């Protein structure tokens, strides 16, 4: 009753009748008697996975458990997670020591759960036909701080004397952290005179619209835009390997494939609806992770994640 009163008030005060009332279809009941709300934030790379799981979970529980998923980037997500504001932090890189310290200070114990694998695609415009492969050393030369690479010919002398336009994720992105750590050998070490965006779609548009461009971002965004972009095979010392679901899963696309995590607040596992949600996450991940464009873990991988979770929930966590 009160609920309807409040909705009415919202409508009235909104000075507009559009969209008010309307069937509030979601039925009560559903499987089990779970209710409550769960809040997730973090990496925009992991976002689609958690979102898909949330959608399926809400469908299963009849909408009584409310799951919200935000995307503040891996670092931004940990900031909120470690203040105790969220239950789950999506991450495209492992949590850092100082972040763990911040979490513990606020009484939040993060539990790491692997949910899938992603690769980072090095992409160029399809009009670029000269570049057929790129080595990690060349990537470092292009992206390192103070890099003097301004033209394609600066990378390889037999490439044309054309300006090179760079596109990459912003510093709040887990993709950025991971790329800088693997390619430069030092996290956050990157030149800064490139077009940066936390929104991978902006990078796709940028590279697709510029024949002299080179960019890097998550494989999913490349897979969705194969008609507009070309991914360069990467030579990590064992020959040129193009990114594909196979090469990313078996890690031959090295070193640019990386794991996807969710970090779970240990104390939240005591709430039945939350425990059920995380279990549901791992049950549905083998199906949902590939659906949104990433590569699922092996069966053993998910089993290991389930065990981590069960241990944390039962309080038999390994000694600190």
């Amino acid at each position, binding site marked *: 009753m009160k609920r309807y009163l409040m909705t009415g008030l919202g*409508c009235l005060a909104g000075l507009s009748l559009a969209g008010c009332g309307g069937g509030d279809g*979601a039925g009560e009941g559903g499987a089990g008697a779970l209710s409550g709300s769960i809040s997730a934030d973090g990496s925009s790379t992991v976002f689609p996975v958690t979102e898909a799981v949330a959608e399926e979970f809400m469908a299963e529980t009849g909408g009584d458990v409310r799951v919200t998923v935000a995307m503040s980037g891996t670092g931004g997500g940990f900031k909120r997670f470690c203040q105790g504001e969220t239950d789950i932090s999506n991450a495209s890189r492992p949590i850092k020591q100082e972040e763990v310290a911040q979490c513990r200070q606020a009484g939040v114990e993060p539990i790491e759960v692997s949910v899938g694998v992603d690769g980072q695609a090095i992409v160029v415009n399809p009009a670029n036909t000269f570049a057929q492969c790129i080595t990690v050393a060349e990537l470092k030369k292009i992206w390192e701080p103070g890099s003097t690479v301004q033209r394609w010919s600066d990378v390889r002398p037999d490439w044309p004397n054309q300006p090179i336009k760079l596109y990459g994720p912003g510093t709040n992105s887990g993709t950025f952290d991971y790329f800088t750590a693997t390619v430069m050998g030092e996290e956050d070490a990157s030149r800064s005179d490139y077009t940066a965006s936390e929104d991978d*779609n902006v990078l796709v548009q940028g590279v697709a619209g510029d024949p002299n461009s080179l960019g890097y971002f998550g494989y999913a*965004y490349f897979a969705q835009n194969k008609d507009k972009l070309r991914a360069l095979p990467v030579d990590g010392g064992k020959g040129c390997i193009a990114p594909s679901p196979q090469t990313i899963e078996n890690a031959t696309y090295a070193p640019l494939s990386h794991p996807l995590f969710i970090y779970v607040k240990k104390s939240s596992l005591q709430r039945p609806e939350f425990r059920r949600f995380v279990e549901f996450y791992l049950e549905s991940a083998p199906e949902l992770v590939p659906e949104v464009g990433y590569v699922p873990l092996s069966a053993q991988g998910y089993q290991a994640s389930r065990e981590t979770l069960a241990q944390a929930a039962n309080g038999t966590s390994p000694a600190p």
Partner: protein
Amino acid sequence: MSQPATVDAFARRRKTRARVASVSSALFFAAAAVGIIALVILLVDVTRDGAGSLSWDFLTSFPSRFAARAGIKAALLGSLWVLGFTTLFSFPLGVATAIWLEEYAPRNAWTQFVQMNIANLAAVPSIVYGILGLAVFVRALALERSVLAGALTLTLLILPVIIISAQEAIRAVPNSIRLGAYALGATRWQTVQRQVFPVALPGVLTGTILALSRAIGETAPLIMIGALAYVPFAPDGPLDEFTVLPIQIFGWISRPQVEFHRLAAAGILVLVVVLMAFNLVAVLLRNRYTTPR
């Protein structure tokens, strides 16, 4: 001999003046056309992309990762909730401030200072209000990412605009009305309540509704307080999490699939309709209260 020369000069000047006049009228028309053409291009473009996705299902479904199933219900209701509370907070506060400043406050250095700061606040970028909202409402007052936190943040954002426009409206009330009321022995409150405010009301309402139209389109401060999210439910109360139309649109545009970009265009159409409904209400209210007394 000199007379024809003067007439000539006069005729020449008249021609020049006429030319300047027609050129300037053309310039002003062009200036107006720029804005209107831009709006038409935008609307045509958005309608072409989005009209196909508009349907009853689109209005009554929650967001989904499948474009075909995704709808805007959560965002539409979220926007109305936030706007409702924003109106509730900002209108009384803004109007009261304006009345105090215009009718009660003494003209001294202190009120000058207040006045100047309100003008400055009106020019502060909206993202700054987002940071303030995050620190004060979300964290310090522990409202989390609720409708209430969003509405309070937007209230701060539009309050200066409401105050300034309400002040203008009150200032436009002829002083003779006040003097007449005082002459008949009315107190200051009676004068304000029965004479000044009713005359100023249409202007006050117009300013308020324009400010609220701005609030409904604001994205940056709400992203700052963390409302950029997948929120698959409509709020039930002021402490529920929420999403709003511009954020839902932004979220859809950020996706790689073209189908979601079409949904975003459809979402823009919904937002435009809501905005137009608002402006319509503004016009109706103004007409209702400007009937000659």
